């Protein structure tokens, strides 16, 4: 008995995108979402009644334009409250700098740094373009590669060659090193160094001196290749992305079921046969495509005992630590940041005064402690999107680096203290904001894990490090969306090319499912 051609576990953005692409080819697809909202990390959340904020991801800056076009997201209601927002790196006593495209301005920024930034931005864009080549198709296998894989490798090789010898060798040098060293050799301005470093470590459990952070920066810069200039803000909060994708998927004929938590992936003999829901209901399909992270998919839903031991071992070794928490504030008035004009208040505000500050903020999580002075990526979304709360009120959200997944003593004991630390930190840059707070809410990595079903609270469903990208993502033998278990696929951030509301994992997975279906 078969209900569907494919069941998709999780109605995150990648799940919905994968479903829509599959449905376009006539497949009968159902998306099964545990929560009562869609979009996964693209969510809108109410702090308290009347104060809405993006619950997990807060900016849209990487969504693939192909997906926007193919799935007609504009038609389905995707609207921006603000596009191409500059980033303001907040300095002491209002001495800020502003990054906008390839320009940087502000107090204390030297002409040399301005020229260097322009050059740096161009170079990173070039490298990110090369990544794009790899990101928009399944990652090639290095051994036993077929023609499709060879073509990808060839394109990558050609892309590198085309950059010219100097850029190519520099790319090879940079891809494994850390953002700290790159900043040291590129700029003098500590605010500029700090701001770029923060971009390189957001969502990771890495510090600026950790190897691999240039790669994570390039991953983020994919957005610039896709025509985003800085970050953008979706009208209605990021949850709107989920709604729009769901609307598009439904139009293609996808059945979407909310409050339908999958508790088990079922096997029929040695291949996938369907899933069991929390309610006990069983659904049958020859294909199960998981938008859940690989550890949840394989360890919890399938079970280590249902795969070969080498695969279980790989799954158990996935590194999925996160150092990122999320703060939400409901405010009864417009906050004032020293030196930031009202017109600039809707921009992206960073607190990362210099790289050592950031590295010191990182140090404690290695020992299961939280930062006494964290770094922040702040969005006051209600400035650009007044509908998020009542007039006169405001909402602020911030990505907070760094908080451990499980501090010694447990979050129960530390959460309020850490919340106060983060708020105090903001208050230093926005004096008086403390008195405007109506409600506050801190989501630790453990909370993000619980609320969004991401193991470790890791945004990317597995650290985006060189050992876990491309043909190693999420682990060798599972890198082309299909797992070793026949019929079981991955389509989430844990698969190539990783997270950030980009959608390519879902799109590529659909392409792979379609391709294999045609072969069979």
């Amino acid at each position: 008995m078969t209900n569907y051609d494919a069941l998709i576990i999780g109605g995150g953005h990648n799940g919905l995108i994968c479903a829509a692409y599959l449905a376009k080819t006539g497949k009968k697809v159902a998306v099964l979402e545990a929560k009562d909202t869609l979009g996964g990390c693209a969510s809108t959340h109410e702090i308290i009644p009347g104060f809405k904020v993006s619950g997990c991801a807060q900016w849209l800056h990487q969504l693939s334009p192909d997906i926007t076009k193919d799935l007609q997201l504009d038609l389905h209601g995707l609207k921006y409250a603000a596009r191409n927002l500059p980033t303001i790196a907040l300095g002491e006593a209002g001495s800020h700098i502003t990054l906008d495209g390839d320009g940087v301005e502000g107090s204390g920024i030297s002409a040399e740094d301005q020229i260097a930034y322009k050059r740096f931005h161009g170079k990173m864009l070039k490298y990110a373009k090369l990544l794009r080549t790899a990101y928009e198709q399944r990652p090639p296998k290095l051994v036993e590669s077929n023609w499709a894989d060879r073509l990808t490798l060839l394109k990558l090789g050609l892309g590198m060659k085309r950059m010219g010898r100097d850029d190519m060798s520099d790319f090879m040098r940079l891809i494994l090193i850390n953002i700290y060293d790159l900043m040291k050799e590129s700029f003098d301005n500590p605010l500029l160094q700090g701001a770029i470093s923060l971009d390189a470590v957001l969502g990771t459990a890495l510090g600026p001196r950790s190897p691999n952070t240039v790669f994570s920066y390039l991953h983020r810069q994919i957005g610039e290749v896709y025509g985003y200039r800085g970050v953008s803000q979706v009208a209605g909060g990021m949850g709107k992305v989920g709604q729009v994708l769901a609307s598009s998927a439904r139009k293609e004929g996808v059945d979407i079921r909310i409050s339908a938590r999958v508790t088990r992936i079922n096997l029929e003999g040695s291949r996938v046969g369907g899933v069991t829901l929390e309610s006990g209901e069983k659904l049958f399909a020859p294909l199960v495509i998981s938008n859940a992270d690989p550890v949840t998919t394989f360890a919890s839903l399938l079970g280590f005992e249902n795969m070969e031991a080498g695969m279980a071992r790989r799954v158990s070794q996935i590194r999925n630590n996160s150092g990122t928490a999320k703060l939400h504030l409901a405010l009864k008035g417009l906050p004032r940041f020293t030196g930031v004009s009202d017109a600039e208040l809707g921009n992206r505000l960073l607190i990362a005064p210099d790289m050592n500050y950031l590295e010191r903020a990182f140090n404690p999580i290695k020992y299961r402690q939280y930062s006494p002075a964290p770094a922040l990526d702040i969005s006051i979304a209600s400035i650009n999107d007044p509908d998020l709360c009542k007039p006169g009120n405001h909402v602020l959200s911030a990505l907070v680096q760094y908080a451990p997944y499980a501090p010694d003593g447990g979050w129960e004991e530390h959460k309020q203290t850490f919340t106060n630390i983060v708020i105090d930190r903001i208050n230093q840059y926005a004096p008086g904001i403390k008195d405007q707070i109506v409600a506050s809410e801190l989501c630790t990595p453990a909370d993000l894990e619980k609320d969004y079903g991401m193991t470790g609270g890791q945004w990317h469903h597995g650290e985006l490090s060189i050992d876990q990208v491309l043909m190693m993502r999420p682990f060798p033998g599972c890198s082309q969306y299909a797992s070793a278990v026949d019929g079981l696929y991955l389509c989430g951030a844990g698969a190539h090319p990783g997270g950030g509301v980009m959608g390519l994992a879902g799109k590529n997975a659909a392409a792979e499912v379609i391709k294999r279906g045609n072969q069979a």
Partner: protein
Amino acid sequence: MSELSNDTMLLETPFHSRIKALCGLNDWGNWAGYTTPNAYFDVELEYFALRSTTGVFDLSPMNKYRLTGPDVEAYLNRLITRDVSKIGINRVGYAIWCDDAGQLLDDGTLFHLGKNDYRLCAYRRATDWLQWCALGFDVNIVDETDEVAGLAVQGPTSCSTLTAMGLTGLEHLKPFGMKNYEFEGEVLMVSRTGFTGDLGYEIWITPNKAELLWDRLFEAGKQFLIKPIGSYALDIARIETGFLQAGVDFVSSEEVIRPGRSRSPFELGLAWLVDFNKPLFNGRKALLAERDKGSRFRFAFLDIDGNKPADHSFILKNGKQVGTVTSAAWCPTAKSNLAFAQLEMPHGAVGEKFIAEIYYQRELHWTRLLAPCTVIDRPVFNPARRRKTPAIAF
């Protein structure tokens, strides 16, 4: 000034004092970190003791893992390629296990001691792999290599010897069966298993009773011409009967460094141990693909003309090398010159003829011999007494 240490790098087995007293040749080898005798007095006489009376071989260095817990049968069924549920309590099964690529990690014997209670004897240290395999299973894994001493008692008079030692009713034990006896307040576990292809038993005891067991065994076996045997004699016997030796006839895929040097069960003539009716076991997917697409190599028994053992020989077809020999011996009882060969596919069908390129030396003079050879179905040595139950008394 440093003092000379009495510690040797190699460990001694619980039978060492007795073995040392009998090991006239003082010819020792290293088996899995233990000092073990290569030969006691004469390799050929030791071999003939195995085939004509009783030979005793110290098995203690064999890696032994006790596997227990509610999930142990499911765990083992995922670990090994055959169906574990078909090995009943008090039965023993030969078993192989593979990695996910369907390449052989090791072979061994699985003893079903009781409900949810097994012992796995393995050629290689296996703790690491066994632990990795435990992910998702409620099993308990204990390395009991040092806690169980073992002797192989093999040959036509082995049953008589053990019966004379007081193991009454042993003749009714079927091949691959096992039975517990009481020995000086301890459990003596006896299994009708062995590595010689003949009537024979393996007996297992706690180390503190090992020496006493040895003494009683040799006392009881005196009238049945019992002899201790070393690993050289055992090697001839196991080749004669067609048993693979891990590390010799295949290299564990965990130890292989060069690509293509590991082997699948199909490439070692072990397809009979692979049960695709099981929905899952390590290597299943890769082995299924190999079954459909074909293997790279074929394992073959070669009957070689003449009496020069074809050790490490190249196997030629029309002058072109198509394989190599992994084990070879002149087999005295079977009176055949046998070799185990790895042949490139499609070679190796029963009856196919090849040339073995044998090099041997007499008084520093090397001779190259091109000996015709033929693939045979199975080795000649396969006496009926091996399987007869009740065991025939000699």
